[in-house]
């Protein structure tokens, strides 16, 4: 049982990472990661929706027939996102002003439909919730790393404006990595996003290949 949870966790965070393994949700990934704070905000908002949507879809999985499952999932996800959007706007307006841009984008995040289809429609509620959480955290980590790299090279700062997203207590995160930096505009613009995603993807592949090679090599060495 613990083995299963560990696998879901590993899948979400690394092996089957939304951005770097499933290659899903690239549109929001490239669009909002011009800074680490933006990446973090988008990631956290997506994680919240992902957990709830996975749980809702898992709880109705026996009722939904295969033929109409996609429209049903889409309607459910869109409703959840709209509910989140409205309640944040009404009751946490300051946070909404920072996250508002990202929330509407979550509807078009195919990773959420992807998890509904690939996992939640076949699994029980606790497993689906964990899967949603881990996929969301993997997504958040990816976006924060991409945003951080683009921000450091693009404007010389890291986590700028974090206090707007997380509250004044987190303003210690805001650092100037390269003082007096003139900025490298290309990294902030979309091409920078493509380059950083491409390089990180290549790096993850190399890392995974090395690890796989090691696993094969060890038994051989033991045999000889």
């Amino acid at each position: 049982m613990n083995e299963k949870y560990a696998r879901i966790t590993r899948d979400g965070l690394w092996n089957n990472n939304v951005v770097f393994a499933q290659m899903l949700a690239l549109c929001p990934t490239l669009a909002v990661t011009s800074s680490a704070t933006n990446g973090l905000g988008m990631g956290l908002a997506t994680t919240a929706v992902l957990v709830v949507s996975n749980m809702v879809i898992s709880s109705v999985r026996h009722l939904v027939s295969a033929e109409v499952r996609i429209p049903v999932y889409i309607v459910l996800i869109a409703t959840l996102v709209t509910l989140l959007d409205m309640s944040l706007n009404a009751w946490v307006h300051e946070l909404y002003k920072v996250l508002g841009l990202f929330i509407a984008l979550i509807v078009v995040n195919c990773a959420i439909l992807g998890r509904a289809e690939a996992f939640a429609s076949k699994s029980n509620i606790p497993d689906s919730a964990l899967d949603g959480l881990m996929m969301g955290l993997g997504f958040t980590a990816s976006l924060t790393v991409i945003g951080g790299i683009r921000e450091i090279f693009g404007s010389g700062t890291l986590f700028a404006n974090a206090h707007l997203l997380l509250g004044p207590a987190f303003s210690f995160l805001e650092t100037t990595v390269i003082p007096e930096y003139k900025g490298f505009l290309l990294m902030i613009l979309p091409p920078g996003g493509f380059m950083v995603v491409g390089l990180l993807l290549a790096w993850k592949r190399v890392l995974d290949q090395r690890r796989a090679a090691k696993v094969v090599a060890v038994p051989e060495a033991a045999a000889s």
Partner: protein
Amino acid sequence: MNLEELRGKLSYQGILLGGVALLTSAALAYASRATEADIKAAEAADLKQSLAQVLPGEYDNDLLKDTVTLPGKKGEVLVYRGRRAGKVEAVVYQVVGNGYAGNIVCVMGVSREGKILGVRVIKHTETPGLGDKIEPAKAKWIFDFDGKFLGDPPADKWAVKKDGGVFDQFAGATITPRGVVNAVKGGLEFFDANKPQLLDEAGGVK
């Protein structure tokens, strides 16, 4: 009949889709009603806050309710008026400039003498790092307008330095400040053209 058989039926698909749509619509309608008042209040507070930035000082009326709509060069302009003892002391309205990558929406406050009290950019899509120096958080440039009016500088100097005017442009971005300067100049011309209506002194006729 068990669920397995039921799910295969054609009518089940329709009823399921309809049911899901009905339930979600009901949830949304309920949430919309529950949040409507709070969202409106929060947006009004936001608007008030942005008006206060370009309208320093105290006014004894409710700015959001004392409005007048006048025809401008680019469609109708909604004007908020700040009064003291019934007299209009300052007006606030939006002006739109042509930026490098789309419209730049600014809000500007003008005193009854026609002096600029403040200008803020509220929406733009200019290049980050180049054109976004029009935001007060990035640079002090937008404060250059404070206290200016048509005449100081003279009308032909209401332009960026590259065009022979008095306002700075940014390194690597001329089109953005040019758009803002032209929009603000247009806003002052709008004030001059509609002064009686703006100040609510149109010959005593309301």
